[in-house]
């Protein structure tokens, strides 16, 4: 009874709140007003139902933290087992790998192309995951480093005819360089300032690319960027896409390998310690600025490298590909996936990229849903879809000790 009253109030409140924007649409030139009363009904019913869900989730969260989460039980333990027990995860990995290898052979170019895009976001997500997930640095301008890589390839190719494989390491290096250049002054600041400065930096890079015509060809961008070759061989469209696909699969594997090793290394632990408690971290003898800088630069390196691949994939780039929305998408991949969790980030990247691709209706609401899910995730499940589990057997004592 109490619940219904509460939900009714919520529903009325939201109907009031959304009334002007959802119902009325004015045309100030034609001097007409359009009334869309149906929207009010949707909002009312939606808010009513949603308030139940909200309360239920809040209660569950409160119960979960009270008894230290044996409630979030069976399913949790099951996913954990899949992720930690070699007997369980080895066959899964094998199946995924085989699937990945034969995928471009049985699918058409269009599908393969989409998959390449998804893989690009996987790598971007894993790269940003180093910065946000592991080191806890909120980087809202990640796409700037991606742009640096893409423009590095486009411009170096245009002016000097440099090939893909030459520019790939250069792009990565430039990403790192920009990361260090930006990071050095701002990383000693408090965390929330970092967020806003990186956001500003991302916008600066985009604005410069848009306005500095002599350098970047402005909003019209650069076209005819060559696809990667293979020892001088040129491909037709289909095989070029396949080639890129395998390249991206290799890149994903490489990234996983690196991130996985870093997670259980001296540097990785320092990153996590920094994320958990900066002051205790410093008191343990860890140089805060230097540690932050390595994470920031390493993330930027990845973005730079993937930028090169992106330019080679689309063969055309312009500043519109590097807006804040792009950074926001990559960030929501990390947040949804579970900060620090490799599997989670990969899963989130696939969901967020493939879902709008196959569900056109969904794509209109894509950013709306991303935004909402970032809020909901933070409120109800800050650890993400799949929380990062610290491996229990990562550190073995030597037997003679």
């Amino acid at each position, binding site marked *: 009874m109490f619940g219904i009253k509460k939900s009714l109030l919520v529903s009325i*409140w939201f109907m*009031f*709140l959304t009334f*002007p*924007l*959802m119902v*009325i*649409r*004015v*045309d*100030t*030139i034609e*001097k007409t*007003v359009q009334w869309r009363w149906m*929207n009010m009904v949707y909002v009312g019913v939606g808010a009513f139902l949603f308030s139940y869900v909200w309360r239920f989730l*809040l209660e569950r969260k409160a119960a979960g933290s009270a008894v230290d989460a044996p409630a979030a039980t069976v399913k949790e333990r099951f996913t954990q087992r899949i992720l930690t027990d070699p007997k369980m995860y080895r066959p899964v990995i094998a199946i995924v790998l085989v699937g990945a290898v034969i995928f471009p052979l049985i699918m058409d170019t269009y599908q393969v192309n989409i998959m390449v895009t998804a893989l690009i976001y996987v790598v971007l997500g894993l790269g940003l995951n180093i910065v*946000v997930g592991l080191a*806890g640095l*909120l980087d*809202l301008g990640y796409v700037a480093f991606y742009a640096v890589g893409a423009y590095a390839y486009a411009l170096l190719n245009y002016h000097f005819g440099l090939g893909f494989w030459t520019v790939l390491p250069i792009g990565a290096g430039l990403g790192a360089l920009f990361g260090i250049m930006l990071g050095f*002054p*701002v990383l000693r*600041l408090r*965390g*929330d*300032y970092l*967020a*806003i*400065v990186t*956001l*500003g*930096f991302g*916008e*600066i890079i985009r*604005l*410069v690319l848009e*306005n500095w015509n002599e350098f970047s060809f402005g909003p019209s961008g650069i076209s005819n960027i060559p696809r990667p070759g293979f020892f001088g061989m040129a491909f037709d469209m289909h095989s070029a896409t396949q080639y890129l696909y395998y390249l991206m699969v290799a890149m994903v594997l490489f990234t996983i390998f690196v991130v996985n090793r870093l997670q259980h290394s001296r540097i990785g632990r320092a990153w996590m310690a920094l*994320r958990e408690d900066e*002051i205790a971290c410093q008191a343990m003898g860890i140089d805060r600025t230097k540690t932050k800088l390595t994470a920031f630069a390493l993330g930027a390196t990845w973005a730079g490298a993937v930028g090169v691949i992106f330019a080679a994939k689309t063969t055309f780039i312009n500043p519109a590909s590097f807006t*804040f*929305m792009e950074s*926001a998408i990559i*960030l*929501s991949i990390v*947040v949804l996936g579970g*900060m620090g969790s490799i599997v989670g980030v990969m899963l989130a990247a696939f969901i967020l990229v493939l879902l709008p691709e196959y569900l056109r209706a969904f794509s*209109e*609401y894509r*950013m*709306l849903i*991303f*935004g*909402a*899910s*970032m*809020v909901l*995730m*933070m*409120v109800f499940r*800050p650890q993400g879809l799949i929380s990062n589990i610290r491996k229990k057997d990562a550190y073995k004592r030597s037997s003679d000790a």
Partner: protein
Amino acid sequence: MDYFWELFFGGLTRGSIYALIALGYTMVYGIIELINFAHGEVYMIGAFTGLIVAGVFSLMGFSGASLLVLAMVIAVLYSSAYGYTIEKIAYKPLRGASRLAPLISAIGMSIFLQNYVLLAQTSDFLPFPALIPEFDFMEPYIDYLGSSELVIILTTVLVMIALTVLIKFTKIGKAMRATAQNKKMAMLTGVNVDHVISMTFIIGSGLAAVGGVLIATHIGQINFYIGFIAGLKAFTAAVLGGIGSIPGAVLGSLILGWTESFATGYISSDYEDVFAFCLLVLILIFRPAGILGRSTTQKV
């Protein structure tokens, strides 16, 4: 010289708008130490509400100053309601969570609201009616100071005075200052901190809506994205002046307004937004506490 004065008043107008938005950032930051990324969106929603109200009531025969006041009042009301709701949904459940969580939640809220307006209204630029009349007595000065600019500047001054009175002399103002200084102590002395936080969001959002309606009618068009850049700049202004400090926010806004106005006027208009961000980065490097902010030591 006219050109100089044109840029001067242009900068002052900009600065006034930034100040109206920056106050929301600074007040919220002063109390819960959170960058409310969704604040720019509240400003944008204020502008949209103003547009809708103006559109509906102009058909009912309202015009001129009465229409402006009506649009302003309802926009303020709605923006405040949004600000209040945003805090309840996206920030309140996160008190005591890690410092990253509310920031991400704020970003998510900002993205959500942008796209909510985009879907509910349109992605195009909407023309905004000129609600501020051209005053005859402003005729001689028209080259460098228009009527709408005058109204913006004067309104901002009035709002600032009202805010100062509110904070200095009312009960809620005192509670706000106490909470900003020391949350625990405030709570012990019987301040209802939840209430104070809600009021801060309501007041800050209302101020932003005033700015939103004024700038929209001055520039003549709006879209769902205006809050993003304006919010970023107003935040820059707040940091410039010293985040948490109310006079600082005003001072920072004016400096930013003039910097932009003169830099675009004398250097290049292509890089209008770049100047603001460069200023932000420089300030953070050389004086992170801002002009009027005091550097404090985090208690360990």
